[in-house]
């Protein structure tokens, strides 16, 4: 029986040491500043990304999915090593990544490559990949791992606060959160992802209030199997939120990480969100 290897994309926001330890292969998305193209998490640091984003405003960076060819290359290497693949990706509603992975799998060997739409993003996707990789390391077979993944997907929660709607508006990936556009006041949205799509939750006017509300939402969702506080270029807010969550989850087990720059280009700096797997 062959081993299972987990493949995902860079929007899973997996910390590199975690990916390395669990032997998860991360396929990068692309970031384009004008003519310059970078691979997310490889060719450009967060600092440089946000510096350029600010410097080149109002021209915003664009993102693109890994191509089917990119996936074919990665898949082929793994297949050649004799392993089978479960490839788990960012919501198909936000990116063609999932579809390109699917095309690559069909091209190569659909029997040995299973592609799953996580219908989520960031560490919500990351937690699923970690659980799947851990199961693979334990020696679980394909069906068992798929079952673990499918059991987890409905338990992912991602209440998030955006400092501004400007970037989301530009990216056009807002869906029904459109209800929050065009407000007379300068409101900051709290959003989530449901069924693979962005949904509006409520509006706040201040960061302080945003953190209060996110913490309150987390309290309603608790207890958690796993929880991360993700941010775009605002570590202080993330630390503060993690501290506020210490009463619902052991503080040392709350992962704090910076969201990838592809996501950063869609939500802008100053966003902070919770990526949680609620307990069964």
């Amino acid at each position, binding site marked *: 029986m062959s081993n299972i290897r987990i493949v995902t994309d860079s929007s899973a926001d997996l910390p590199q040491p975690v990916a390395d330890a669990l032997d998860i292969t991360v396929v990068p998305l692309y970031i384009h500043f004008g003519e310059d193209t970078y691979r997310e998490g490889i060719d450009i640091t967060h600092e440089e990304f946000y510096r350029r984003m600010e410097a080149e405003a109002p021209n915003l960076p664009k993102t693109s999915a890994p191509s089917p060819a990119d996936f074919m290359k990665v898949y082929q290497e793994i297949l050649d090593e004799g392993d089978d693949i479960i490839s788990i990706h960012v919501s198909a509603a936000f990116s063609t990544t999932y579809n390109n992975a699917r095309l690559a799998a069909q091209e190569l060997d659909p029997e040995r490559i299973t592609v799953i739409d996580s219908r989520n993003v960031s560490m919500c996707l990351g937690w699923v990949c970690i659980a799947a990789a851990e199961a693979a390391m334990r020696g679980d077979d394909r069906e068992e791992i798929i079952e673990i993944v499918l059991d987890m997907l409905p338990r992912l929660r991602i209440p998030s606060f955006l400092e501004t709607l400007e970037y989301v508006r530009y990216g056009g990936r807002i869906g029904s959160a459109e209800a929050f556009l065009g407000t*007379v*006041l300068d409101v900051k949205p709290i959003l989530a992802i449901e069924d693979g799509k962005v949904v509006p*939750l*409520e509006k706040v*006017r*201040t*960061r302080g*209030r945003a953190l209060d509300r996110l913490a309150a939402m987390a309290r309603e969702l608790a207890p958690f199997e796993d929880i991360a506080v993700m941010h775009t270029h605002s570590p202080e807010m993330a630390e503060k939120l993690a501290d506020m969550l210490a009463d619902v989850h052991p503080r040392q087990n709350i992962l704090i990480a910076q969201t990838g720059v592809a996501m950063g280009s869609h939500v802008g700096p100053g966003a902070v969100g919770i990526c949680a797997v609620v307990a069964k």
Partner: protein
Amino acid sequence: MAENTTPSSLRVHEPLTVLDGTLLRELVKAAAAWLNRNKEKVNALNVFPVPDGDTGTNMNLTMRSAVKELDASPATRLDEVAKVVAQGALLGARGNSGVILSQLLRGFARGLEGKETATTDDLAIAFQAATKAAYSAVMKPVEGTILTVAREAADAAERSAATTSDIVKLLEDVLDAAQDALRRTPDMLHVLKDAGVVDSGGQGLVFLFEGMLRYLKGEPVEAEAETSAIPDHLPELDAPPEPLADGRYGYDIQFLIRGENLDVEAIREMIRSMGDCALVVGDSNVVKVHVHCLNPGPALEYGANLGMLDDIVVENMDLQYEEFKQQAEQTPVAPPMPTKRVSTDAATGIATVAVVPGDGLRNVFESLNVSAIVPGGQTMNPSTQDLLEAIDAVESDTVIVLPNNKNIILAAQQAAELSDKTVYVVPTRTVPQGIAAMMAFNFKSDVESNVQNMQEAANHVVSGEVTRAVRTTQIDGIEVEEGDFIGILDGRLVVAGKDLTDVMRSMLKTADPSRFEIGTFYYGADLSEEEAHRLVEALQAAFPALEMEVVYGGQPNYHVLFSLE
């Protein structure tokens, strides 16, 4: 008009021992008429010197709704008449005083249930029932208000009924006790004492008792109130002119006569003979004429024969009056306006209804996805019926109401009770609280958690209001002169002064801006955009760390409403 006020049957001095439905009708109308006559006196008793949602106006409109319902009903039995009155008052209730009054009438009607006629004993029971209903309508009953006046009046009715079967005597005792209680309201409520006034709602109730008694004694309750076609004075509207004849107003005619050797005295006499409100001033070369006539022809012709006419303005006052009447009728009961944008209703099945003054603030609420707006606020309290209509008009059966004014909360709660829908009132006391609540509406939560979230969000903001004092007074040690800008922070008057910027600066300082991230300033109809921006620039200079946003509110009377959060 004498037949309205002095029924011949009552001139006979034998005790009146039985109250029937027909007489109750007359008593209610007399009470309403007397209150209408005296409503400005009640309005003058506002504690805060703000252009307020006036108690007199609110109670008067509440009574008027009761009389209107009565006029439309054929009821003759005592209990039925009382019920119709209660129903009319309930729907027409405006402001906290109006709601409490409507509850008094509701209790009174319940106390008379099953009675074709009533004796003093029956009335004593009904007065007690009235008091009980009013107390239970208020979450935290406060003594020194209309409630105290009602309670002591009811106790007097009980004592009186034990010794007399004369209804006039009972009402005299009731009025005495009510007046006595009213006089003592400042001793029970220090805000009244500080402001040097008695309780306005209590005063309104005393006028109602007085009106009934005046009727029974054959004293006039002022006939003009019977011509209910003339709308009540509303704060934004000029009072209507007096009709000339046959209920017609005719034309308002103004012109100049230019000529030589004009005889001002003679012209004045002639013009006076032609119509009303004649005003003739000038000298031998130019005379200014103003007069109201049913026909503009003769006055103009007369003037033209004396010299050359100039600056002729002729206005049709009948049309103006019609407009006035429509405006007066529309203003308080404008239909709920469905909003154009995605509403909470369409998105979640939970409708939101907000009471909002001003077109700018309406845009704010619409952009925050409110389902329906009831125009109104501090200077214009919507009636229970206005709120009920908005609640009924929205699609959903689950509705959250934001009254956005402390004087509208009770009417909203009353509307919630009367509606067949599931209605929650988040008792927002200010517009900024309402905006905070609206933002906190969560598109994925159920109605209970939303109500809780919204309340919590409302409590989270500090609300500021700035208006001009309508009289000179002293509140909480702050000297207020008529015309001063006064700053109210979360319902407390904190500063008064001549300069708007100074007043605002002092308010922000009092609130301690270091506690907040953002201040949002909604400027009213009394400020221009430029003035508003200049004002906020000055504030920004004084408090550079606080983020500030200027938004057009368009609210009447309140130069600035603001929130700190």
